[in-house]
């Protein structure tokens, strides 16, 4: 706890919490929201396409957008770490924070499975998608939804 308090009370964290600059707390939260929009939004497009939305859209070229998804992920890994540091004593003892991390870990593992199972398939756009692909699309959506719910609820528990 001593270490967490020292991180939280460090000069940079105090500045982030107190400054009015757009590089302060809410500016970083904005980056976090945009990163979420990129990562979860592109995920949702791919997942919903697998589930039958926009059927004319070929899946194979959608893989290009997966690198953008990772850009969103890294934006959030960095901004999330800074946000965590500014409130370490509360967030790191809050079980909800670990629930959120678990959902994100599961979502990333799910993405790797989807890549291996769907995007590595040379017949991806010529034969119907397998049940496994559909199940992976549903679990992916569920994991990101879980991460959003846990993340939003974290905001309400911070003040406790």
């Amino acid at each position, binding site marked *: 706890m001593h270490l967490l308090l020292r991180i939280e009370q460090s000069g940079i964290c105090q500045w982030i919490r107190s400054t009015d600059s757009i590089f302060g707390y809410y500016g970083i939260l*904005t980056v976090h929201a945009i990163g979420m*929009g990129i990562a979860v*939004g592109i995920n949702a*497009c791919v997942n*919903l396409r697998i589930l039958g*939305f926009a059927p004319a859209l*070929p899946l194979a070229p959608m893989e290009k*957008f997966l690198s953008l998804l990772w850009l969103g992920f890294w934006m959030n890994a960095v901004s999330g770490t800074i946000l965590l540091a500014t409130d370490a004593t509360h967030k790191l003892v809050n079980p909800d924070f670990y629930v959120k991390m678990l959902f994100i870990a599961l979502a990333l593992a799910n993405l790797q499975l989807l890549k291996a199972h769907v995007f590595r398939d040379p017949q991806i756009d010529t034969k119907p998608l397998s049940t496994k692909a559909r199940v992976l699309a549903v679990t992916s959506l569920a994991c990101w939804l879980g991460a959003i719910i846990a993340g939003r609820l974290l905001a*309400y528990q911070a003040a406790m």
Partner: protein
Amino acid sequence: MNVVHLHLLLNHIPTVGFGIGVALFVGALVAKSRDVKRAALSILFLTGAVTILAYVTGSDAKAAVASTPDGSTAQIDAHETAALVAFAFMQATAFFTWLGLWAWRRLGDLAGWNRATILILAVVTFGLMARAANLGGELRHPEIRGVLDSVASAADGVPGERLTAARSWGKYVEEHSWVWPTCEILHFVGLCLLFGAALVVDLRILGVAKQLPLAAVYQLLPLGLLGFTLNLVTGMAFFVATPQQYTGFLFLLKMGLVALAAINVLYFMLADGAWTVAEGDHMPIGARLAAVSAILIWVGVLFCGRMLPALGNSF
């Protein structure tokens, strides 16, 4: 010029603009003109977008009128409730006009079910909006006061505490702590759907993943509409519950950007430029500019929304 001026300026559009749209739409159905019909749909859709600004600026105008000596709370409440109902119908109309404009590229006309839905909703909306506008006008024009007095005195006659629809919702949110976080979660889900669909469509227009056929990418737009609808409903749930929180410049900028986004998406639905480019040909500059501005507008909306607690007074 302050927000009250803005409300007085904008509040003519939901009646006058929408009236022109309805008249054109009916005229187009009678004359069987597809071009006029498409123009009417565009006017109805844009009026819906501007009505968001007209509605949210009403909160400041209410505070300003209530603080004048002859400002009657019961009369303002009557106008507010009428405006809220008209607003809901207006947005429902805009939703179906969007679907019609979107499907136009494939159908070349408006589907029968959609034509009927828009016609009924538009006529009802016009009636409701005219009533809201009349009640609003009577607030500052005692010489035409008639309806307002009867509505207000009927409300005054009710014993006990009288709550407007908006205030009852505000009270419900206050008393049920799960409502606000639930709406926030849905607002973030809607954000992801809208932003994700916008990114894929706009980046494809800008040259990313050129193997994706443009006509197929067009099919992703309804995902954006789904996200937007989710966020309009949850966003209004926030605003109606606690309008006093949403008064600053940043919130108005956010709503202004949303109205700009409506013009942007209308361009993509009306103009053929982006969707008829042959393989190997250059994307027209207009489509590229529209794609860049769409991304900037939505990043701006996200920025304003997320910064609201910091620069405004909301949570």
